[in-house]
């Protein structure tokens, strides 16, 4: 009677997939952006915890593709279509990209939250995948949980309560 419900945990600069009735979550998103791609009919979804906007920023020999908006979204889309999801039914929900701290500095890194949001939106536009809901920007960290059976994205913020989009 009681189906065991798993919650799949996505770490920092990580990417995972889920199918109903399981859920998928990532916690403590600050300037990072949580991107959920899902096929509502198949009840399949994937979530990426994107840390940086562009893989061209990488100065590593062995790059982690899940860390960057462009490569993470490529892998997210491919992983879902490989599992039978349709690109034409695919939708996106995104959350995160906060500016946690604000003060004057020469470092461009202060704007990393907004830059991550822009990069994710640009990539989704290239794929022609619509963003049907978003909760981005602001100054608060977020923990997000996605349920592929209802396509609800549940968001919790410290001192700002909880919302479902």
């Amino acid at each position, binding site marked *: 009677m009681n189906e065991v419900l798993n919650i799949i945990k996505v*770490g*920092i*600069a*990580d990417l995972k997939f889920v199918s109903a009735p399981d859920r998928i979550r990532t*916690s*403590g*998103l*600050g*300037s*990072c952006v949580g991107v959920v791609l899902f096929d509502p009919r198949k009840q399949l979804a994937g979530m990426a915890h994107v*840390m*940086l906007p562009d893989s061209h*920023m*990488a*100065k*590593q*020999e*062995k790059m*982690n593709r899940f*860390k960057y908006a462009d490569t993470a979204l490529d892998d997210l889309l491919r992983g879902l279509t490989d599992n039978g999801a349709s690109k034409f039914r695919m939708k996106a929900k995104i959350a995160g990209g*906060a500016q*946690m*701290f*604000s*003060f*004057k*500095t*020469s*470092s461009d*890194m202060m704007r*990393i939250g907004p830059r991550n949001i822009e990069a994710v939106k640009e990539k989704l536009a290239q794929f022609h995948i619509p963003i049907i809901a978003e909760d981005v920007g602001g*100054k*608060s*960290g*977020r*923990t997000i949980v996605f349920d592929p059976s209802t396509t609800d994205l549940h968001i919790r913020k*410290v*001192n700002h309560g909880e919302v479902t989009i």
Partner: protein
Amino acid sequence: MTFSQRLTDMHLDVLKEIGNIGAAHAATSLSKLLDKKIDMRVPAVRLVEFDEVMELAGGTEKEVVSVFLRIEGEAPGNMFFILSPEQGEAFVERMTGIKGVRFDGEDELAVSALQELGNILSGSYLTALSDFTKLDLYPSVPSLSLDMVGAILTFGLIELSQVSDQAIVIETSLTDVDHAEAEDIEGHFFLFPDPQSYYPLFKSLGVSSYE
């Protein structure tokens, strides 16, 4: 070789010494501020995955009060002083004599008092570090935030994340001697030097094999 594979035990010892000296000075400052004996724990230097960094501070979702400052100068980096909200309130109450302080944004006095506390502590940490290494280091104006550990600390890893998937965490904690057994940790310092800062740091301390 990757950024982290070049580190030897000697390098880690040097970093531990940096944490040691910085936090010892911060402990003295805190002791004066609160008129209380403050102890410092043996510093830890760890090379860990990003997710483990968050675990060291209580887990990604744990709510903390954090004072963040950017270090500019010859060895740039990010520094965080992290407390639980309850400990932050206790610190401010002790410092100001005012009861019932809160950090939810309404109480400007509490926020500015803790910001000042963070400023003094990180300032003395950084001054000690600067004296020890003879490097010019300047702190930015500190920024206070009450939020989740993950949201706060990830920000300090942005520079590093472009070259590595691991972070060197130089961590030191200050504890209140009288309540050492009741509250395990009172305050945590996390120092994340930018990747390009390791060379000047090691060089200044006579460990030159790191390139």
